Structures are given as structure tokens and as C-alpha cells.
């Protein structure tokens, strides 16, 4: 079966904004989403390991990593709305079929997320009582949530790799459908790119967790002692180093072991080679900054680490977008849709976006001027 025959007709309304606008917000939104997402993806496991095997400083790092996790998850889930929204506008022809083919696993994310999110609250509630509050069952809940987030990551990797692997649809469809209607039980597990892609993302998440620990130690943990902050920087460096090695190993497998020759050729020739190179080497920068600043922890240095990691994530998001478009090229030209710009809603959205940022900034200013929050209840 010719996979292109499974590509539905174009929407008669056309894009409500130029393609570049849609993809800009998709990539920007994904970058913003990746920061908190990385923290729950790898951060919870790191926190659990530190709490289980670490010394007093490591347990304190674990505590500080988990305490804001309910807020991080809430923000991350919300930040995920924008990229998914613009993805559904521009990539609807591939997004809906791919997720319908794996409907049950895709829908299971909602259930898993609910359980994991409440699990985080259960764990964090124990932190109120210090180390003693982390009883065996709370620890078990913490590990369970860490595993659930990994499973969710795996399911997301499935959906987004299946979205571009249109050639796999016919077989998956035929083997998991009743009279042409999918049962929604397919997974993209026979895609050689799935595993390295999923694992590579975990490596990136580890680096973000390492960078976050460094930012927390330098910028947010003003009430903590100097020895703690130096210990936290050492832990940040270790976590970052593990993440960097992991990212390099699985990233290499992904790029050199699974990319089609055409894609690799394009990404390694002008002008894309610059982007590929920057995406590959950028994670070294925050690692270097953590290494250099580990002895004298200053807020400025920590902010620099945070900024550098933001750059790493943004480069990754841009590269992913370029690769996604190249992978889809044989089946779909996302730039060929007619455009019917909704000017006034677009402008109103931008105005509200800016105003919203202003209000959030005002609230954060008020918050920061009052020091650390009261943790009662969680």
C-alpha cells in the first residue's frame, strides 16, 4: 500500500496564520515546555537516587528538587498546550492518524499523568517532616512516579516518531484494525529510531536537571549554607556529566545509526551543518560553566548556567523541527496549505501574551521579594 494514499485532504479553511508564525510558536512553546518536562522526566529519578543513596547534602538537594515539583508539573503541562495546539494546526494530516493508530496508549498518558501527579504530591507532603517524613510507602510512591514519567516519555516518543513515519502506517493499521477501523493499540516499537530517540531525550533531561541544581544552588538557595551550595554544585556537575555522556551516546546512535542517508546528508551540509553542530556541542557549554563555577557559587554564574541550558534546549527544539519537516517531506508539504490569516484574533493573542507575561513578572517580583514559600500542605 502506498503510504501517501493515507494522507487526508487539506482543511478548507486554510491556516489561520502564516506557516512561519505557527512553527515559531510551536518551537517556542516546545522549548518552554521542555524545561519543566525535563525536570520531571529525569529530575524525579535523580531526586529519588539522591535521597536513597546520598549523604545529607545529597538528600537536601533531593528535597529541594522535589519540593517545587508540583508547580513544575503544573507549569509544564500548561506550557505543553501551545506546541500541541500549533502542531495540530500545521501537522493535522499526520498527527491525528498517528495518534488514532495508538489511541489507547496515547489516552493512557492522561491516566498515568494523573496518578503520577498525585504521587508527586504524596511524596512532597512527606518532605514537610524532613527525612523522617519519607516513609517506605512514600518512597515507593516516589519511585512509581519516576517510572510513570519515563513510560509517558516513551509513549510521547512513540506518537511523535509515528507521526513522521508514515511508511509504517499501512502495516500497523492492517494488523490492528477491525474492518478498516483501528483498535488504537499500535505502538511504533519496530522503528529503529524510537529507542535512541527516547533515550537521547532522557540524556538531555539529565543535563537540564544538572543545570537546574546548579541554578538552584546559586540563585534560589540563598538561605542554605556555603558547604551545601558547593556540594550541590558538585552534584550538579556529576548529574550534568552523566547526562552529557548519555546524550552524546544515544544522540550518536540516533543520528548515525537510524537517520536515513538523505536526512544525514542534508543535516551535515551547508547551511544546516551549523545547526547540527551547535545542537551537538551546545550541551558542553553549561557543563563547562558548572565546572568553572563549582568552587565559588554566585547568582550571576548560576543565571548564566540557566541561560546556557535554555539555549541548549532551544537549539534542540529547532533541530527537531527541521528534522521533522525533512522526514515528512516525501508525504506532506506543510508549507503548501492555503493561508487565511485571522488578523484580529492573532493580534489580540499577541497582546494578551505580552500582557500575561507582564502580570506573571509582576507576581514573581512580589513573590521573590518575600523569600521562600511556606510549605505547609506541600
Amino acid at each position, binding site marked *: 500500500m502506498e503510504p501517501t494514499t493515507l494522507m487526508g485532504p487539506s482543511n478548507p479553511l486554510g491556516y489561520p496564520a502564516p506557516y512561519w508564525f505557527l512553527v515559531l510558536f510551536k518551537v517556542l512553546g516546545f522549548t518552554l515546555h521542555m524545561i519543566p518536562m525535563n525536570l520531571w522526566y529525569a529530575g524525579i529519578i535523580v531526586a529519588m537516587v539522591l535521597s536513597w543513596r546520598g549523604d545529607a547534602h545529597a538528600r537536601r538537594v533531593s528535597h529541594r528538587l522535589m519540593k517545587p515539583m508540583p508547580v513544575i508539573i503544573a507549569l509544564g503541562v500548561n506550557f505543553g*498546550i501551545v506546541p500541541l495546539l500549533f502542531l*495540530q494546526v500545521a501537522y493535522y494530516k499526520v*498527527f491525528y492518524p498517528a*495518534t*488514532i493508530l495508538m489511541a489507547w496508549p496515547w489516552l493512557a498518558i*492522561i491516566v498515568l499523568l494523573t496518578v503520577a501527579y498525585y504521587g508527586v504530591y504524596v511524596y512532597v507532603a512527606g518532605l514537610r517532616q524532613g527525612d523522617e517524613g519519607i516513609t517506605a510507602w512514600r518512597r515507593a510512591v516516589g519511585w512509581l512516579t519516576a517510572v510513570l514519567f519515563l513510560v509517558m516519555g516513551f509513549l510521547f516518543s512513540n506518537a511523535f516518531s509515528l507521526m513522521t513515519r508514515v511508511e509504517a502506517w499501512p502495516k500497523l493499521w492492517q494488523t490492528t484494525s477491525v474492518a*478498516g*477501523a483501528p483498535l488504537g493499540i499500535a505502538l511504533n516499537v519496530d522503528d529503529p529510531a524510537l529507542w535512541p530517540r527516547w533515550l537521547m531525550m532522557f540524556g538531555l533531561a539529565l543535563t537540564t536537571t544538572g543545570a537546574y541544581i546548579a541554578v538552584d544552588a546559586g540563585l534560589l538557595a540563598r538561605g542554605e549554607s556555603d558547604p551545601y551550595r558547593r556540594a550541590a554544585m558538585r552534584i550538579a556537575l556529576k548529574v550534568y556529566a552523566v547526562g552529557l555522556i548519555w546524550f552524546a551516546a544515544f544522540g550518536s546512535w540516533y543520528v548515525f545509526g537510524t537517520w536515513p542517508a538523505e536526512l544525514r546528508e542534508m543535516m551535515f551540509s551547508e547551511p544546516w551543518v551549523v545547526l547540527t553542530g551547535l545542537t551537538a556541542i551546545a550541551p558542553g557549554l553549561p557543563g563547562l560553566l558548572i565546572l568553572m563555577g563549582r568552587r565559588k557559587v554566585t547568582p550571576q554564574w548560576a543565571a548564566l548556567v540557566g541561560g546556557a541550558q535554555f539555549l541548549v534546549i532551544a537549539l534542540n527544539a529547532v533541530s527537531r523541527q527541521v528534522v521533522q519537516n525533512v522526514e515528512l517531506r516525501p508525504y506532506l508539504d506543510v508549507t503548501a496549505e492555503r493561508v487565511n490569516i485571522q488578523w484580529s484574533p492573532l493580534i489580540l493573542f499577541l497582546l494578551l501574551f505580552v500582557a500575561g507575561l507582564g502580570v506573571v513578572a509582576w507576581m514573581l517580583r512580589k513573590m521573590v521579594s518575600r523569600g521562600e514559600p511556606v510549605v505547609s500542605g506541600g
Partner: protein
Amino acid sequence: MHYPWWYVPFLTSPMLIAVISVLHVIVSHYAVGGGLFLAVETRYAYRTGNSAYLSYLREHAWFFILVTVVYGAITGVGIWWTIGLASPLATEMLIHTFVFGWAMEYVFFVLEIASAFIFYYYWGRLEPKTHQVIGWIYAASAWMSLVLITGITAFMLNPGAWPEHLTFWVGFFNPQFIPQVLARTGGAFLLASLYVYLHAAFKAKDQELRDLIGLRSARPALWGAILVIVGGLGWYLALPESARAALEAASVLNVLMVLIFVITVAVFVMLYLGPYRHPGWLSPGFAILFFAFGVAAITTGEYIREAVRKPYIIYNVVLGHQVLVDEVPRLRQSGFLEGGTWTRAFVAHHYPQVMNGKEIDESRLLQLPEADQRKLGEVLFQYHCNDCHAQTRGFSAVGQLMRGWTPEMVRTVVEQPEKVHFFMPPWSGTPEEAELLTKYLLRIAEPAPGGMRYGEQRINRESSRLDAQRRSNDHSRRVDRVARR
């Protein structure tokens, strides 16, 4: 049709939307009303210097975050997930029309999340004035998200002049917009008070404090009930004719309409006699009963709101079987199997003998062996009927609905479903395809239940006696004739 159809045995996939929506709305209304409650009451508590009440409000804010930020937010995402899976064409149309509406809602979501956490976690650390402002930022953002999503959901029931203009604002400010905003705002006030009662009945131990909570929350709840009724009336008046007819024709909707009216009145009376006149009645049992009534009213209302749209998902734009209204004439001409991306691919792969180049030759469909014709009938069933009907068992299963039907009866419904029941989508295929579907349906239709008597046995006995008598008379006449010869 543009997309693969997700087959969920027994339940049908769109019913998952209903399930998740119901689970969501009982919290999403509280997320709006509860925010207003916290903003207004925190201000009151600061103004009156009532530290006991402030302390209770802080406890309530924690409960509020646990319920709304986790469960409410994730089930909200869950609706989005499910509509994309079970109703992809309508979702595609909605997102292409209202992407900036959703994007604006996202801005308010972020404000909600940030303000809710700061409001709770910095309680007692912020200046009272700043604390109150942040509470109001949450309340305003939550209400704005209600307004934005209501514009989109109301559009689905009655898009007004949108099909002629195709512009955002004409679609957003549709005839159902104001009535539904009123009803939902009222529902938010009402449900929030019921949540407060439920929480306070268990958590506020001091009788004086409980009386204060009961009294303070009664007034918004009463206003909420009035808004629900006013909005509900407006909703009814702004219904398209088909939706109003569906409300009157479908027995389940009749019953539910009466039910929602009775429950709303009961809640109103209970509010007046209970927390408003006798705040001391606020016991856990009373609060649980109250809450159950409120949840029943909200969920019933949601179900009715969804059900009356039939046969459309978006009125006059997208039909229930995932077909654009404008596509129906073409599909009747060239075929439903041919018009559907995935159905055409199915036929081309499994039955290349009916293909003429890249197109399906409809005239060859009825030349296939019977078993293959029924198989294609099943494909048609999945893509044309399974939105609303399970196969042999489950939600509105056709195997059960067509018990004992004759081929003519089945064929009539297949060829003209919209004439038999106006709330069914029109047949969107060729006569050949209607024949395929008929053959499949006859295969899965159960026989009429046995043992049912309508007096036929007596009628049959009587007619047998008359037949026997007639035969006997004929025989006698023949014998006489022979004898005369």
C-alpha cells in the same frame, strides 16, 4: 472519513468524550467559582480581621489546588486528547477556526497556575493587599478561560452566521454564546458553594465559623441557580430547530430535562431553607447530599448539551459520521468508500478487482462474493454508523435495535436515515454501498425476541379453522360435482 476511525467495541469512541467531559466539568466549574469564592472571601476576611475564617480559607485554598490544578487541569487536557482521537475532523475544523481562542485561553491558564500557587504558597508572606490582588488575578483569569472555551463549545451547537462568513468573531459570538456564559457562570457559583459546604462540613469544626461559611456562600449559590435558569432559558431559545426537536423527540432527553429542572429547583429550595435561613444545618450528610445534587445537575446539563447537537458535531458544518456537510452530495455521487481516505485505501488494498485505476468502480462492488460484500458493509458501518452505534452489543447497538427487521425495513433506514430519524446523519454513499451495508446489518441483526404474544395464536387458530372449513366445503363441492356427472 478523512481520518482512520477509532473502533472502541461496546462503548463507541465518542462516548469516551462524554465520559471524560463529565468527569471534567464537575471540577472545571469549581475552578472558576472557587476562585471567585476565594478572592471575595479572602477580601472579606482581611477586611473584618477574621483570622479564623482566613485560616479556613487557607485550608480551602489547598484543597482547591489539589482538586483543580491537578485533576481539573489534566482532565481538561484529557478532553482535548479524546476529541482528537474520537472526533478528529471536527477537532481539525475547530482548531483551524479558533486556534487563537485556545491560544488566548492558554495565556489565562498560565496566569491561573501562577496566581493560584503564589496565592496559596505565599499566604501570610505577602501584603494583604497584594495577596488579594493575586486572588483576583486568579478569579479573573479563570472566568476568562470559561468565557473563551464557552465561545468555542457554544459554536458547536449553533454557529449562527459563521458558515456564510467563516470568520473568528462571527463564530465566537454565536447565538449560544451569552446564554451559555450565563449558565456556566451560574453553574460555577453554584457548584463552588457546594464544594465549600462539602469541605467546610468536614474541616470547619467551630460551629460559629461553619455558620458564617454557610451564610456567606449561600447568596452566590442562589444567584448561581438563578443564572443557570436564565442561561438555560436563553440556551433553549437559541437552539437550532433540530436541537429543540431532538429535545422533544428523544425520550431520554425528555426525562433528563425534567430531571435537571427538578434538581435545580430542589437545590435552590435546599439552599434557601438550609445555609441561607438555617446555616446550622450544614452537617456532613447534608453537604454530601447537596453536592451529589449539584453534580447530578451539572452532569445532566452537559449530557443534554452534547446530545441535542445530533446529527451534527458542529451544527451545519460537520456531521456525526465525520463528514463535512458540503461533502454529502459528492459522496452520494461518487461513493462513501471512494470519498474516504482510509476507506478507499482499504478497498484498494483488499479488493483491487473493484478498482478502476485509482478510483473505486461502484458498479463492481455488487459483483463481489457475498462474504466480501458483507465485509465492505462492515467497513461502511464502522465509518458511517459507529460514531453513534455499537455493532451487536453495547451503546445503541444496531444488532439490538434492528431485531426482527425485514430487509426492506433495514434498507429504508440505510437509504434514508435522516427521514426515519431526523437526528441521524443522511446516507452519504451510493445505492450500491447502501446494499452492502444492508447485507451486513441483516447479518448482525438479532431475530425478534421469541415468546411475545400479540394474540396471533388465537387469530391463527381461528384462520386455520376457517381454512379447514373452506377446504372441506371445496372438497364436498367437488365430490358433489363428480357425483352429479
